[in-house]
């Protein structure tokens, strides 16, 4: 009977594994039915219409309107990511070096907008930037401008609001990384004769790069698929890829084309995550969301 013990523990192990899979299965079923199936169906639809066809892909790679939209989306995402990094890095740096009370305040100011509905923020920007909006009135009151500036219903308004909405996604991973950089290192650098800027560029900045990578990836990827701000603040001129998808569905009833555009967008996002995932664990990026 001695050899029955490993057998028993193996059986116990199997049962344990079966139980765990059973526990995860309801959640998994929801995911399978509501995201895997729909996205899979979309992909299928992009290549199958009364038989296999690559017509949809041929179209989106040859017609100017699709090309323009893809390149505009790429440019806007690049610009938004760059701006978010330029604005977010100093904020995260400040939050990581100032005394605790101040860093709590800075983080609160970053997190409050983060938990405000995207729609509410889009509305606030509309109110701020429109022709009779706060900023135009203020500038006219100061006499800086005579005519109201066209600040919204264009790419400018879209970028301003999108950076605002995505900035916390940049600051939070940056701060998480910077917070872990030991201050002793900077002091050691300084004690060895390094000037503050020298220790920053040679010690702090390189150590904060994982956070930069996580933040920029997250902001860039989120921006690629952004829908609400270009739709509400773009004024019909800023046709980003997400708008192309929705218009093909809502206005033109072009399911095949919409699906193909969606598939290209999704593949782009997955490729970015795969490449970045080789350098830093993905849950570190997604953990911020």
């Amino acid at each position, binding site marked *: 009977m001695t050899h029955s013990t490993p057998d028993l523990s193996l059986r116990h192990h199997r049962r*344990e*594994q079966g*139980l765990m*899979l059973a*526990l*995860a299965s*309801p*959640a998994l079923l*929801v*995911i*399978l039915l*509501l*995201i*895997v*199936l*729909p*996205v899979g*169906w*979309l992909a299928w*639809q992009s290549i199958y219409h009364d038989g296999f066809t690559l017509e949809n892909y041929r179209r989106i790679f040859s017609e100017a309107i699709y090309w323009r939209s893809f390149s505009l989306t790429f440019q806007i995402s690049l610009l938004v990511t760059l701006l978010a990094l330029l*604005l977010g890095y*100093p904020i995260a740096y*400040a939050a990581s070096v100032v005394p605790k009370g101040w860093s709590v305040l800075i983080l609160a*100011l*970053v*997190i*409050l907008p983060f*938990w*405000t*509905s*995207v*729609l*509410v923020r*889009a*509305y*606030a920007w*509309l*109110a*701020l930037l429109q022709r*009779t909006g*706060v900023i135009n*009135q*203020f500038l006219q*009151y100061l006499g800086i401008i005579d005519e109201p500036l066209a600040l919204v219903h264009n790419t400018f308004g879209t970028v301003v609001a999108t950076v*605002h909405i995505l*900035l916390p996604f940049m600051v939070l991973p940056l701060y998480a990384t910077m917070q872990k950089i030991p201050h002793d290192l900077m002091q050691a650098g300084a004690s060895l004769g390094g000037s503050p800027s020298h220790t920053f560029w040679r010690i702090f900045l390189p150590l904060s790069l994982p956070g930069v990578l996580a933040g920029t990836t997250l902001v860039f990827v989120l921006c690629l*698929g952004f829908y*609400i701000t270009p*739709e*509400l603040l773009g004024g019909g001129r800023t046709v980003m890829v*997400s708008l192309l*998808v929705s218009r093909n*569905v809502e206005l033109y009833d072009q399911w095949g084309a919409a699906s193909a555009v*969606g598939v290209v*967008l*999704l593949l782009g*996002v997955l490729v970015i*995550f795969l490449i970045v995932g080789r350098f830093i664990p993905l*849950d570190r990026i*997604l953990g911020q969301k």
Partner: protein
Amino acid sequence: MKTFSLGRIVFVVFCALVLLYLILPVLIIVPMSFSSTRFLTFPPPALSLRWYEEYIGNAAWMQATRVTFAVATLTVLIATPLGVAAAYAISNSKMRLMRIVHMMLMLPLVVPIIITAVGIFFVYAKVGLVATMSGLVLANVMLGLPYVITSVVAGLQSFDPAQEMVARSLGMNRLRSFFAVTLPQIKASVLTGAIFAFISAMDETVVGLFISGGQYQPLTKRMFTALRDEIDPTIAAISTLMTAASFLLVLIASTRQKKSG
């Protein structure tokens, strides 16, 4: 280190301006919602509750509010148990397969929302779930699951599973030992996950735009449609209330988390 060099001043001013940029749009909606005029002028001519009255007196807005609260509540009631069960399984299993399951459960955060929305719309159109309450709740459960799972997996990381083993060796069955020993200790992370799932359902816009309709339109869909047409200050009142609700919930979540250490 108290040198007020020019560089330091520039840095501080820059940070202050960026923080102002972050917070100003969130704050500006409050005075707008209390303004007595349709157009925002400074200083506001007079304070009034006009836009709040407009909101409360409007049957369509009220119906949308009821839908949003019903959807968010049902979403939490479904997503929380499903998410806790999945998180428990993820934490207790070292199988390769479970890692894949974990990755799949995070998909709603990876797939751009517009693709999810169009995909769900298409599937719902086939099975007749467009413009239904159950369709809306199901979609929000799916979108809320990653928040519950992430939060509870993190909570379980600091929990020693040996405690549950002890309870079981003393004769409790697995389910009872979970509710008696494990759950009380991960309560805060469960609550945090549930609150985030609620906020996610309350704020969800894009999927709702595609799949909701008729009498089952959430607040965000009505707001979006209203914003496309004109800027109605009623939305400022609704926004203020929504933002206050979000902040209150986040505050509850963060104080609870601190308490449990």
